[in-house]
């Protein structure tokens, strides 16, 4: 490595203009990236990490101003460089991959042209010559049939393929530095694992420097050399990965690590969240910026602002950093694993549920009737059978498009099922109407994913919760008010929150209000549809804790739907794994997390990025990515098109049998149990093999 860092940011301060005066987004941020090094910028939303990326590329909007500091790229300051010169560096020497591939690619232009653009712009290549380079680059990032792919449009490709194309486009001018802003956040976990592997490989091959922006410490652990932790626009800790993730020196880093649910044998424990939330911009606390949320804050912390000081191999913004390891036991997992999983009769009993959505109709010529109208359907849920007992948590895991949300909505009767039965509390409620449905609605509630959209923005919190109470029958004004306050209290919010509007609340607080609303009718069963996916890690932990507490206190049963296997493993008594509308494996959490597994579960487990450095990195099992226009299989085993352990024709024609390795644990697969008990030996890199 060279002495001169490739990118050096020094004392960077950026402010955004707002009607109430300028608001500081970054305060005195410094870091550097050496040639071939990968630095992770970690922080929760609002920490200023994306602002850094935009500042480096000179893409800050008109309302942002760089107040002070330098951004040195190969010794040249980018902050005062003329636009023309900056344009020659941007996209050429320094390139960027954004978070959302669906929003980054122009839907009206072939992907080949989009990827060729930097070559034509920066290297003056002719269209044909540029296309040749694009085909080569597509091949390098593992895209199948690159020569044909260049003429396709973004909507014809899967999310993983789109992200590969963006990476290829970013690399096409052979930059020295690539800035990746949450490049895998919008992707499914198995696809994320493949993209991370690809980035690792490219880095080594090209000696590429990376500035990797993420909120996911598991991803950092997998791909980066150094970590720079940001909090409210300040760098709070910087250092080598192994040191920072193993022995964090700032309480915030320690808190972040403690808040992550881990896949492991001990379940039902409480996570240790970071209390409070990020200070509002322009309202930074006195003294140490982190002191209102810090578990170890002393009086001194409230008055003395902290400055970044170097400490073995990195730097930290805390005067008590040396003492931090001693406090470790204070954090950790607080509280004892609670309660035994629910027992007794099933509360919810779903039998052979099917849900088909019409895709449209097509006039078909020929056949016995000469002209007929053919209906095309998509099976979102395809024969699901499951049971949830009172007080039990069933986790439902699957990637996007697996039908898990549809299943949840069918169960709460927001969507009508096409076929099958739902029994609740011994009664058939599949087609309940009128009073029976009203009672069912009181007993079964749902919590949604998106805190921004789950509350009516024009309505006070109290009115939102109160409406659920009004529907239960007549209630006096005092009782209503008292009950609203009681419900707010039960989700950890003070009574005066009833007067607030949703936009005055943070994401975590809104999610608590959603939970309070769901609790208003004293339900017995709640469908939690990705309740923590849109939240930051520290907030996610508080909401997960709250859900476990409520379950214990009120004997609630949940169907906990999530794409995040670690969150599910943390809270669920049993786990069901869903793919293509079918549950492929179901059983007690410990059984599902250990062998034998269905090949899909196996792939999911191997793909989850973990921060646990003590465990060896599992051998990654790559699922075959969708090639052009490939869909979920409709015959045989629905997983066969992506299965890395496919046997042969039987998988394509026959539905797999039910295997039961232990009581209450079953797997749907053609492979015999003794084969499933051993890991897949061949990790197929399907992308390149699919023809």
């Amino acid at each position, binding site marked *: 490595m060279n002495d001169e860092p490739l990118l050096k940011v020094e004392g960077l301060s950026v402010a955004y203009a*707002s009607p109430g005066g300028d608001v500081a987004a970054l305060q005195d941020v410094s870091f550097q990236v050496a040639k071939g090094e990968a630095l992770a910028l970690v922080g929760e939303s609002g920490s200023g990490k994306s602002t850094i990326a935009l500042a480096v590329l000179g893409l800050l909007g008109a*309302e942002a101003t760089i107040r002070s500091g330098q951004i040195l790229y190969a010794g040249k300051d980018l902050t005062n460089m003329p636009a023309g010169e900056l344009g020659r560096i941007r996209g050429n020497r320094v390139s960027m991959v954004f978070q959302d591939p669906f929003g980054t690619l122009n839907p009206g232009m072939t992907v080949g042209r989009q990827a060729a653009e930097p070559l034509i712009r920066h290297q003056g290549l002719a269209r044909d010559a540029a296309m040749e380079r694009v085909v080569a680059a597509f091949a390098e990032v593992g895209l199948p049939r690159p020569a044909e792919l260049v003429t396709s449009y973004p909507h014809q490709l899967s999310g993983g393929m789109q992200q590969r194309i963006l990476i290829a486009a970013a690399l096409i001018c052979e930059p020295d530095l690539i800035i990746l802003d949450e490049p895998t956040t919008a992707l499914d976990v198995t696809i994320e694992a493949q993209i991370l592997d690809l980035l690792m490989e490219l880095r080594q091959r090209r000696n590429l420097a990376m500035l990797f922006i993420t909120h996911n410490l598991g991803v950092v652990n997998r791909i980066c050399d150094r970590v720079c932790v940001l909090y409210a626009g300040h760098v709070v800790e910087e250092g080598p990965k192994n040191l920072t993730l193993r022995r964090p020196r700032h309480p915030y880093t320690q808190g972040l690590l403690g808040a992550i649910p881990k896949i492991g044998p001990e379940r039902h424990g409480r996570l240790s969240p970071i209390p409070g939330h990020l200070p509002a911009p322009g309202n930074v606390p006195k003294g140490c910026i982190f002191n209102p949320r810090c578990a170890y804050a002393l009086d001194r912390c409230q008055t003395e602002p902290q400055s970044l000081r170097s400490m073995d191999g990195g730097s930290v913004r805390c005067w008590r950093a040396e003492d931090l390891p001693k406090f470790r036991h204070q954090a950790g997992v607080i509280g004892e694993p609670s309660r035994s999983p629910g027992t007794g009769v099933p509360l919810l009993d779903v039998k052979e549920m099917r849900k088909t959505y019409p895709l449209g109709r097509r006039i078909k010529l020929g056949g016995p009737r000469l002209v007929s109208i053919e209906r095309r359907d998509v099976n979102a849920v395809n024969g699901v059978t499951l049971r949830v007992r009172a007080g039990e948590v069933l986790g439902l895991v699957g990637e996007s498009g697996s039908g898990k949300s549809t299943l949840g*909505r069918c169960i709460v009767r927001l969507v009508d099922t096409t076929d099958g039965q739902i029994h609740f509390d011994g009664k058939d409620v599949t087609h309940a109407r009128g009073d029976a449905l009203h009672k069912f*609605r009181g007993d079964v509630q749902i919590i949604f994913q998106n805190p921004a959209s789950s509350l009516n923005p*024009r*309505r006070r919190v109290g009115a939102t919760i109160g409406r659920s109470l009004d529907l239960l029958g007549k209630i006096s004004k005092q009782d209503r008010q008292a009950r609203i306050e009681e419900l707010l209290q039960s989700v950890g919010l003070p009574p005066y929150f009833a007067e607030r509007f949703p936009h*005055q609340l943070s994401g975590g607080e809104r999610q608590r209000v959603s939970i309070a*609303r769901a609790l208003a009718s004293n339900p017995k069963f709640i469908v939690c549809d990705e309740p923590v996916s849109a939240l930051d890690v520290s907030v996610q932990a508080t909401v997960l804790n709250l859900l476990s507490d409520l379950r214990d206190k009120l004997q609630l049963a949940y169907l906990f739907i999530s794409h995040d296997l670690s969150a599910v493993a943390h809270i669920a008594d049993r786990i069901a794994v869903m793919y293509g509308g079918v549950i492929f494996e179901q059983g007690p959490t410990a059984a599902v997390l250990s062998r034998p597994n269905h090949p899909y579960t196996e792939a999911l487990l191997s793909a989850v990025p973990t921060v646990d450095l003590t465990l060896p990195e599992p051998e990654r099992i790559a699922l075959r990515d969708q090639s052009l226009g490939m869909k979920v299989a409709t015959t045989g085993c629905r997983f066969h098109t992506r299965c890395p352990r496919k046997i042969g024709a039987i998988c394509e024609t026959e539905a797999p049998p039910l295997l039961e390795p232990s009581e209450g644990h079953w797997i749907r697969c053609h492979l015999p149990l003794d084969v499933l008990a051993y890991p897949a030996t061949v990790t197929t890199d399907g992308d390149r093999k699919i023809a």
Partner: protein
Amino acid sequence: MVDVISDTRVKRSRRGPLNLWLGLAITGSIVALALLAPVIAPYPFDEMSILTRLKPPSLAHWFGTDDFGRDVFSRTLMGAQYSLLMGFGATLISFAIGVPLGLLSGYSSRTVDEAIMRLMDILMSFPPILLGLLILTVTPPSLSKAMIAVGIVYVPAIVRLARSVTLEIAQEEFIQAAKARDDSTAYILFREILPNAWPPLIVEAGLRVTFAILLGAAFSFLGMGAQPPSSDWGLMISDARPYLETAPWIVLAPGIAMSLTVIGINLFGDGLRQALDPRLNSSKSG
């Protein structure tokens, strides 16, 4: 943990855009003049005088006199009442019918949606004047009937707008939550969706008022609206047609007044759209 409340939403600038204020000033003064017309008009609007027929503007008659010797200034002032009544009344009618239909159409099953929208298609396929005339010719004309006709002409536009806004809001999770707690469709439409649909609807209302004034004037011009001797602007223009060359002031006064009203309300509506539409605000949160 809840003592600090973060309101990261960047508050919108209190100072609205220029056209909002200009439009408000013009519209405001016209409304004020219309309300005060009986008091400030120098002559009764229907007082005829053979001696002062077709006099050009003078100190005694600021806008001149018409063929019956009536004071054009007084008539124009009084006419503002008719025009504004037409504009706001017709808009109110089109909203009263259009908004509930639009909400229902955007929220309901495909069958209901299709039925409502095809009905609107039929309404829309008539040229507005023809549709209005159809309604008006059945019964003797009057201002209130012209108002209803104009209102009905604009129903499809309101239905389509309300529907498109509803389609978007109906996807929100709080609507699903309302369904999950067993709220009625009417409650969901009017209490959950409608309050969130107001901003685009209010902006549309501003534009509709000006369209209604113009269409109302067109009906009066055709003799289907206000009847003589009312001082409706459209009627005034129609009556003054024969004197267009010899006494242009009789046409000009109501014509200019109408243009000013339309410009004022349009500016106001435009300004309102800018102030209410977050996409047009350059401020964004970091």
